């Protein structure tokens, strides 16, 4: 089918048409259901909110949505690879390239990132005794920029122009000479816009943690999730601007005729350096918060203070620091020389040391603890062996000489799924079960939660464990088929079965959320017998959570209060000014503006670029003239004058 739009022709394959039909039906159904349930006011409330808990929920909701989209892509990839010489639907060749590219891109940027940033938004201010994030308005702007970018990458499929150069967007394949269609432009603008949102979110987190802690909570009395958030935010602040510039340069190559990454003068290796100088810290950006979540959960459900707290903090910091010194281990096969490869192999292996410290500390936290295997703890317990396996293959890969064999095979695919799913995704699930009461005032169903855990974890290992062997047998990543003689059929077939088990597990999770809202089980303020400050405020967390600012005198202040003060937290004598929450349509408007501004670039509509560019700048004017601080200062002044 051919459609004509923006002066371009769009050739639609049956999968795209199917997706359009599904999207339209879902949208109509959604509108009908929302109208019937009279839920529009809630949607408006969330669209205009600047409150940290609600923004956190928005992040988590969109992450879940994108998780399903990229998850369906994963299933498609697995079906195509289930049998030798398979021809599933249209997913061969170019279509397959598009499928694995958007699967990777969406999973990293629009699932892993928002899951963690969402949980940070929900939990971190409460854990440190803050009334809200330092900049509530900026927080909303961050979210809507993230969503605008995410929608751009997601809509590319519907516009028959998915990115197709892999999530690493390696040049020169990603330059306009080799991929002239709009697909990789969607990637550039989508990641750019959401990246700006992420940088702003990181700044917000740092200021919140540095300046909004309750009195008495020194940095070394802070729970480990805020600690990991702080370090992660610094990683974002240093790493993401490199990506911003990498994409900026690539944009010049694709739009304005420069040739940084291709041609006789240009250097495609430079793209690899830029991408991985961002990309490797990114790996730690999505794993460190999960470490923080597990630390808090393991401590709570073992009824023990986390073992080796100080070493946990130091380990986080060292991992963060080393994270910037290992990027070349993604480029061992480029041929940068033995010395360079050796240096980066050693720094990479070093990371195993602080990570090992953390693993042992978690185990020692559980040792002689009073362990309860509620769903969050199950995920934490499942995480440890899974992540260790991913870590072991990581050390194997870091041996540069051996990496020449593993490079670009399914062994690598298996490795990074072990760490990213085993770490980040399990961590996010654990965090969602753990803090769900703080978000909505209800607990998720435990039976369904445990079913979700077992299906997902077993499915995960069935999916990815055989991929190690497929890789060792020589199966390259990013191929859409293989022959029966390649001796990888069994591994692929088992892997596909496992993927469907994971899919069923995820469906149980979604069903659990639906059921839990249908038959809500009210959670008290402190459903898990918690230790940190978020369990001292009502569930769901109100707009102004801490009636009296608590005075923190120890680690695990709520636990200490339960032991020695009949659960009463000591009150601080003075408190700092709370951030000003507002209700505003401006952030969502800015997000939409950026979305259309990007589209104007992607489709080369000059007049629209100019108009929307001016509109985006005009947004700064509107914001400056309507900001809540000035308004409040004016009111105060008028009040003083009376």
């Amino acid at each position, binding site marked *: 089918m051919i459609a004509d739009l923006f002066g371009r022709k769009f050739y639609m394959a049956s999968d795209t048409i199917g997706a359009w039909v599904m999207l339209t039906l879902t949208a109509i159904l959604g509108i009908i259901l929302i109208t019937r349930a009279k839920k529009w006011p809630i949607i408006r409330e969330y669209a205009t909110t600047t409150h940290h808990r609600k923004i956190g929920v928005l992040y988590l909701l969109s992450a879940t949505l994108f998780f399903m989209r990229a998850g369906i892509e994963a299933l498609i990839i697995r079906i195509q690879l289930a049998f030798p010489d398979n021809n599933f639907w249209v997913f061969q060749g170019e279509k397959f390239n598009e499928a694995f590219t958007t699967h990777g891109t969406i999973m990293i940027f629009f699932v892993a990132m928002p899951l963690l940033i969402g949980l940070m938004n929900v939990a971190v201010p409460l854990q440190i005794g803050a009334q809200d994030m330092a900049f509530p308005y900026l927080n909303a702007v961050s979210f809507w920029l993230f969503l605008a970018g995410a929608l751009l990458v997601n809509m590319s499929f519907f516009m028959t122009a998915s990115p197709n150069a892999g999530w690493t967007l390696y040049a020169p394949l990603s330059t306009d000479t080799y991929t002239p269609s709009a697909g990789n432009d969607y990637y550039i603008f989508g990641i750019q816009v959401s990246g700006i949102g992420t940088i702003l979110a990181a*700044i917000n987190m740092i200021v919140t943690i540095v*300046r909004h802690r309750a009195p008495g909570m020194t940095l070394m009395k802070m729970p480990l999730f805020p600690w990991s958030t702080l370090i992660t935010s610094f990683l974002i602040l240093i790493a*993401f*601007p490199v990506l911003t510039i990498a994409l900026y340069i690539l944009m010049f190559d694709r739009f304005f005729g*420069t040739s*940084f990454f291709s041609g006789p003068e240009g250097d495609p290796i430079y793209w690899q350096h830029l991408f991985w100088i961002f990309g490797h810290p990114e790996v730690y950006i999505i794993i460190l918060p999960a470490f923080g979540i597990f630390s808090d959960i393991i401590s709570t459900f073992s009824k023990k203070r986390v073992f080796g707290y100080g070493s946990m903090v130091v380990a986080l910091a060292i991992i963060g620091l080393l994270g910037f010194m290992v990027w070349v281990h993604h480029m061992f096969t480029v041929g940068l020389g033995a010395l360079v490869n050796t240096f980066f192999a050693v720094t990479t292996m070093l990371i195993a040391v602080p990570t090992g410290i953390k693993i042992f500390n978690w185990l020692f936290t559980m040792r002689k603890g009073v362990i309860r295997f509620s769903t969050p703890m199950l995920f934490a317990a499942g995480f440890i062996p899974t992540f260790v396996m991913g870590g072991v293959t990581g050390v194997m890969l870091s041996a540069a000489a051996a990496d020449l064999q593993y490079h670009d095979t399914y062994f690598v695919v298996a490795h990074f799924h072990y760490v990213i799913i085993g770490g980040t995704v399990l961590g996010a699930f654990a965090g969602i079960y753990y803090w769900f009461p703080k978000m909505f005032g209800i607990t998720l169903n435990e039976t369904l939660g445990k079913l979700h855990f077992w299906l997902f974890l077993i499915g995960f290992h069935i999916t990815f464990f055989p991929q190690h062997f497929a890789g060792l047998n020589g199966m390259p990543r990013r191929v859409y088929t293989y022959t029966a003689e390649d001796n990888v059929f069994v591994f692929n077939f088992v892997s596909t079965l496992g993927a469907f088990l994971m899919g069923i597990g995820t469906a149980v999770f979604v069903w659990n959320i639906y059921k839990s809202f249908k038959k809500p089980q009210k959670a008290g303020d402190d459903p898990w017998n918690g230790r940190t400050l978020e369990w001292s405020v009502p569930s769901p967390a109100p707009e102004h959570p801490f009636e009296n600012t608590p005075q923190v005198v120890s680690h695990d202040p709520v636990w200490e209060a339960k032991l020695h003060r009949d659960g009463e937290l000591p009150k601080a004598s003075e408190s700092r000014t709370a951030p000003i929450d507002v209700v505003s349509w401006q952030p969502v408007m800015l997000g939409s503006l950026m979305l259309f501004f990007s589209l104007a670039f992607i489709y080369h509509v000059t007049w629209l670029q100019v108009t929307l560019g001016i509109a985006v700048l005009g947004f*700064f004017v509107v914001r*400056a003239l309507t900001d809540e*601080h*000035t308004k409040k200062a004016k009111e105060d002044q008028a009040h003083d004058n009376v």
Partner: protein
Amino acid sequence: MTTYNQDLQGDKKLGFVLYLVGELVMFATLFATFFIFVQDAIDPTPTEVFEARTVIISSVFLLSSSGTIHFAEKAAEIQNRKGIAIWLAATVLLGLAFMGVEIHEFRTYYHEGFTLTQNIFLSSFYILVGLHAAHVLFGIGWMLLLAIQLNSIPSSIYGDKQKIFSYYWHFVDVIWIFIIVFVYAPYLI
């Protein structure tokens, strides 16, 4: 300062400084790009392109504007609105003068055939110096916005707004010094 809150303003200042850290990384990456691609530049080489005269004139304008914005800040501290207005106007004019010289410089290069796509040295030069120029332009717009608000908002909050702007403006100036030292000077001296 009874009417306005120190806590929230401190948040803003720290937040903005962190934002500038991010910007610093961005510019550092662009400098790295320039260093890499300037080495093998032929047809043209940097020496054939750069002219000392325009660089010196534009530098004088931009660097002295750091002084004028500092005086504006001093004036804001003693809530001298007239002083603020004068020094702010001076900064805007200096910024505009800088932009004028820079546009002239780029136009001259362009007419000599030194375009964005001529070679990668020029590409990396334009995307670095061009991004800096965009920052100056944005700063000029920001100052106009401050000027509009000068008489309509409480002076304490105005002072803080201007302080954050001067962080930005000094930052843009520091980047320009790096541009002089690392981009122009090696090929002009």
